[in-house]
């Protein structure tokens, strides 16, 4: 299945990428699964997405949890804790 992934703010700079369309196996069915998949790329992916890093994820513009399902056509955004206001 195909999903769109966005990397925002400091995460975009660490990964050198603003986003990508990615074809993933239906077995990668959650936010946690997708994070593990991306970390397996190694290098900055491994370190920037490592467990314990303060990281937020939104699925289709709603804040998500590790167990939030990921489906065909979803937009999944990874970003650091917000600092507006």
């Amino acid at each position, binding site marked *: 299945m195909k999903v769109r992934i*966005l990397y*925002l*703010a*400091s995460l975009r700079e660490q990964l050198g990428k603003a986003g990508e369309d990615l074809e993933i196996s239906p077995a990668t069915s959650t936010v946690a699964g997708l994070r593990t998949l991306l970390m397996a790329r190694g290098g900055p992916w491994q370190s920037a997405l490592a467990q314990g890093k*303060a990281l937020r994820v*939104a699925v289709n*513009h*709603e*804040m998500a949890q590790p167990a939030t399902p990921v489906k065909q056509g979803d937009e999944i*955004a990874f*970003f*650091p*804790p*917000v*600092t*507006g*206001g």
Partner: protein
Amino acid sequence: MPVRIQTGDFDAGAEIAALRRGNPKVGAVASFIGVCRDANDGDAVSTMTLEHYPGMTEKALEKIVAEAQNRWSVMDILVVHRVGELKPTDQIVLVVVAGAHRGEAFAACEFIMDYLKTRAPFWKKEQTPSGARWVEARTSDSEAAQRWEPPKSSAA
């Protein structure tokens, strides 16, 4: 629209006047303006760039406004947040709440800012003498937002 994201400045007086215009039931207007400081964490700040997540930002702010209207009986709410490059003394954010009485207007205004700071997808990058850096989220902001959560029932 109770929520606006824009690069340009805003006129708080004009926004407040527009929000309560012709509404004789309004007895209190509370407002908050966030402003760009010239220093942060001990370093001088010359400019600040605000980034957001278009699409999600509007939804997140609308959700916060709806939650405030759900919790307090206030009449009208406006949130304006700027993005792009700002410099010290520039205005960043405006929240206006119009209601019948001050207590609810003050509370709703503070609630909106506390939630905005922890839930709306904005990020600040500041330029300091030693280079550009992303602003880190503050624990005090999370704590400020937590006080609006319903009290947890404790078994102990």
